């Protein structure tokens, strides 16, 4: 029987089909107070007007409405009817400004601007013979009644800017001088102060990426109608995003840079043009890199929020401009190398969600904005916001991130999901600095993102705050996983601290592959692959959090933490104060070093480990009285993941030695006695999970869980089931399973919330990731 979860499931209707209502592609929509999203659309005129030549389709403009919370849709033709096809639209305080194109039904193709006043007065129209690039057009708000159109000369690729303004009941179009520099469509344009427009970055290369791309900016004075060179950005960027902030500065984010080049994932970095100094200044980096993304403001239930998203990475981040704090607000199953097509936020039962529609990937001729590429995410309020009245449905407890550190809930403190990597289109993954909190009621909030993006980090509650150590990420000195260098640890102080932001921790830094565990006194025990141990304590040195290190006696054997090879090390202080180190790969040989001293009789030897690291069979136990490590008896099977119980028993799922290379691979579950002198095979009453190299045992809130694969579900390699050992019955109970043929990505980073009957008979609500710890 599955454990229960308190939150009621909220049914969110699917995205309308194209036949029901085509959603706009990369256009701004207007959110109405009743929860509807509305935009200017178009539909074929039916029946087709008589007299049209063959091959000519007649289109008429419509007001389209969609309420994502109810699924309701509505299309209403403009009255009086207007022909045309919408290319771009911009909600202005006075009405909707749109760039449309009229076609054969009106005789010839022409661009037409429309202004649809909010007060219901007749639409204003302005047709023009000016040539705009039909693949590059952007409307930027200049004032309540005015906007700029940024487009290109199709042949020369020079940037063209027009202003469109409503004056005395008429629309007027003014052409600005051309910026005679050829550009791909990978630059950004932003309003930069009063009557100024800035072109930023971009390139004129043949390929996407930054090979090369530009740091230069150009500023157009809309009054004098003159271009001038602007200050250079701190980094050259293409496919970046830029927008004006309320203080008149310009926010610049992401894109491809020389450091974050095509293939390694887009850039996380952000900078800001300061009009007071006319220079760019570095801002904290985004939680993940992004390209082909956008900036938009959204009236969230927790207040007006600046969001950055809808790009290559399937995530949207918020930036609090009062303290330049980034948070990850929403995350979707997948990103798209081509970028997104639409972001549709809405509110249901007090919780915010958003549909993200991605562009299809694959062959370049087939990429398109199709509505079946839409996926849903909960939008997480910031932790500083007033708690929402109801938690979201438990099905929304998912980050789609791999390799995140999971810090279980402790008392009233929420569980935390920290960092990890997420999909960013095709075979690309980017590493994240996102932090989410999930309380036992299932409420999710977003916390300030880490300073450094990292995956496979470890997190602990230390000194009233949260300490994150280790892991690897793009900010490692040599980058990525090829040669990851130690990342600086970070500590988030208690929530009442101002500013409540992650702080770099000085002192000891930990290699990415170190095994770390927390002792009962709050200090950490870190084990280096060479078998040396250090106990780490967080102290304050000159106001800066610092890790102080004290050496411990080395293990008898060097032991390597190899999570990528399903050989994670487990370290635990037992109920009686002993410490057990199990798992990993062990270097079983030790050899004395040759030296002059080694030639002299009676001199002690200095020993080092040598040889290959092999799957473990023995674990080691530290006796605090003697301060020595002792080896356990060897398990029957080699290697495998382990979990250490508080009484000293170790459970492992290891591979049975094969007598021949052709013999089938078989795993066995073994448990040691508390003294570590013997192992026995463990019965798995009621369990349906397959015991193999994906089987993972783990503990949360002193309950034992197993994550692995259920036969026949075909989820493509990800975990498809989670079981809990009911200590009262001795039976394994299934807590969760994937649906048949689910894509494994659908459950990456999924958090389960289950209420279980504890050993003491009392019920408790447990939060645990489906992939285990």
């Amino acid at each position, binding site marked *: 029987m599955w454990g229960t979860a308190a939150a009621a499931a909220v049914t969110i209707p699917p995205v309308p089909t194209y036949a029901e209502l085509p959603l706009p592609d990369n256009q701004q929509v207007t959110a109405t107070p009743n929860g509807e999203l509305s935009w200017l659309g178009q539909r074929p005129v039916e029946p087709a007007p008589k007299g049209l030549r063959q091959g000519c389709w007649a289109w008429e403009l419509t007001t389209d409405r969609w309420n994502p919370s109810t699924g309701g849709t509505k299309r209403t033709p403009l009255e009086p009817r207007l022909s045309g096809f919408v290319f771009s639209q911009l909600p202005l305080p006075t009405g909707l400004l749109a760039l449309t194109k009229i076609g054969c039904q009106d005789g010839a193709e022409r661009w037409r601007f429309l202004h649809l006043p909010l007060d219901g007065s007749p639409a204003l129209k302005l047709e023009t013979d000016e040539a705009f690039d039909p693949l590059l057009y952007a409307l930027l708000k200049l004032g309540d009644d005015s906007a700029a159109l940024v487009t290109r000369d199709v042949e020369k690729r020079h940037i063209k800017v027009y202003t469109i303004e409503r004056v005395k009941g008429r629309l007027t179009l003014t052409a600005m001088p051309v910026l005679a520099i050829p550009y791909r469509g990978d630059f950004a344009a932003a309003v930069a102060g009063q009557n100024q427009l800035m072109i930023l970055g971009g390139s004129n290369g043949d390929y996407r990426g930054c090979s090369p791309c530009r740091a230069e900016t150009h500023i157009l004075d809309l009054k004098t109608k003159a271009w001038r060179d602007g200050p250079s950005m701190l980094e050259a960027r293409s496919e970046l995003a830029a927008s004006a902030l309320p203080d008149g500065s310009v926010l610049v984010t992401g894109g491809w840079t020389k450091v974050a080049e095509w293939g390694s994932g887009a850039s996380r970095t952000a900078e800001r043009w300061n009009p007071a100094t006319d220079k760019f200044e570095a801002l904290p980096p985004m939680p993940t890199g992004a390209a082909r993304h956008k900036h938009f403001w959204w009236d969230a239930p927790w207040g007006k929020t600046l969001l950055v998203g809808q790009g290559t990475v399937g995530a949207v981040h918020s930036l609090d401009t009062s303290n330049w704090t980034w948070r990850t607000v929403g995350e979707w199953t997948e990103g798209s190398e081509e970028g997104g097509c639409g972001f549709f936020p809405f509110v249901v039962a007090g919780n915010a969600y958003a549909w993200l529609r991605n562009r299809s990937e694959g062959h370049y001729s087939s990429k398109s904005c199709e509505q079946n590429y839409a996926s849903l995410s909960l939008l997480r309020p910031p932790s500083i916001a007033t708690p929402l009245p109801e938690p979201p449905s438990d099905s929304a407890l998912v980050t789609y991130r791999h390799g995140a550190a999971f810090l279980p809930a402790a008392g009233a403190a929420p569980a935390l999901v920290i960092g990890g990597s997420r999909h960013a289109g095709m075979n690309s993954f980017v590493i994240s600095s996102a932090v989410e909190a999930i309380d036992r009621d299932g409420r999710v909030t977003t916390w300030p993102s880490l300073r450094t993006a990292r995956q496979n980090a470890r997190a602990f509650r230390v000194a009233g705050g949260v300490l994150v150590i280790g892991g690897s990420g793009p900010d490692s000195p040599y980058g990525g996983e090829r040669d990851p260098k130690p990342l600086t640890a970070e500590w988030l102080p208690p929530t009442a601290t101002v500013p409540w932001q992650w702080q770099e921790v000085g002192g000891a830094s930990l290699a990415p592959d170190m095994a770390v565990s927390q002792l009962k006194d709050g200090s950490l025990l870190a084990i280096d692959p060479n078998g040396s141990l250090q106990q780490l304590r967080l102290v304050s040195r000159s106001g800066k959090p610092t890790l102080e290190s004290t050496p411990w006696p080395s293990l*008898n054997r060097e032991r390597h933490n190899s999570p990528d090879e399903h050989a994670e090390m487990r370290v635990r202080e037992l109920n009686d104060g002993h410490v057990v180190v199990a798992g990993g790969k062990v270097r*079983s*040989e*030790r*050899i*004395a*070093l*040759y030296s002059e001293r*080694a*030639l*002299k*009789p*009676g001199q002690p*030897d200095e*020993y*080092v480990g*040598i*040889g*290959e690291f092999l799957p473990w069979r023995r674990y080691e136990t530290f006796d605090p009285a003697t301060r020595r490590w002792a080896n356990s008896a060897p398990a029957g099977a080699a290697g495998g993941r382990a979990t250490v119980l508080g009484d000293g028993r170790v459970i492992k799922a290891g591979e049975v030695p094969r007598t021949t290379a052709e013999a089938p691979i078989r795993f066995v579950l073994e448990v040691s006695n508390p003294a570590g002198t013997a192992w026995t095979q463990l019965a798995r009453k009621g369990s349906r999970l397959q015991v193999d190299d994906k089987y993972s045992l783990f503990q949360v809130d002193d309950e034992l869980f197993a994550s692995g694969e259920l036969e026949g579900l075909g989820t493509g390699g990800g975990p498809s089931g989670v079981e809990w050992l009911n200590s009262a019955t001795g039976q394994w109970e299934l807590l969760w399973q994937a649906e048949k043929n689910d894509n494994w990505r659908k459950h990456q980073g999924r958090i389960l919330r289950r209420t279980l009957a504890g050993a003491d008979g009392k019920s408790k609500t447990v939060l645990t990731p489906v992939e285990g710890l």
Partner: protein
Amino acid sequence: MRIRHAWWWALLVGAHAVAVAAEDNKSPLSSTIEFLLGEDQWQPGDRYRAGNDWLALVCGKADCRFEPAKLAVRREKWQGHYDDQPTSGQKLTLRRQAPGAGTVVAWFKLNPAISWLAAGPVTTYAANTFKKKRPATEGTLELAVDLPGGEQATLVPLLDRPGGKFLLQLRMPGKRQLLDELGSCSHMVSTEYLVWAGDIDHDGKPDYLIDFADDVGEAKLYLGREAGPGEIAGVAAIYVPPPFGGECDGQGWLE
């Protein structure tokens, strides 16, 4: 990549089991000790003659003895990996004259000048057929040899990091003696280096037969009586294994 041609030395000197020590009075070639490891092998040259004048050092789980053995010889050429022309040599086949229990750990040529080379029990403290004994140290590749009178000898592989090699050291209380290089080709070490230890020449001093060969290298018989100043034992005979046709690639455990 390193290429070892140690066997060329054997070809040049024309001796494959090389005597460097003698019997009681340390004399001459007539008293050389000659031994081989392995029952089927090719050796360069033509110095071996078929015959029944061999002894097999046969060991069980707790003891060893010399048993009569025979050698069959066939002319055969061997083409080395880098040689233009094949090398002339002999295919040697060694067998016990009467089948029996135990494992042959070495073959010794009878020599009338050496009285202790005779069939019968051999005082043995350790052999590669015995259960290996580890000394009470951290070194997992070290071996202990319990000696009469409660003494213990230890064989201690050492890692010479600057030199990029492994060395084997023989230790007795108050004495340490470097023997030779271990794992010189693969750069990996096991505890198979000790072939035998005992008192082969009945002089009351421990003797050791150590196999340093690792595709290249030699096996050496150390006799207590041959110990030089400051030594525990001295080299009395050397066995050069058949030539190695490959290359010593990689760095093994030294990487």
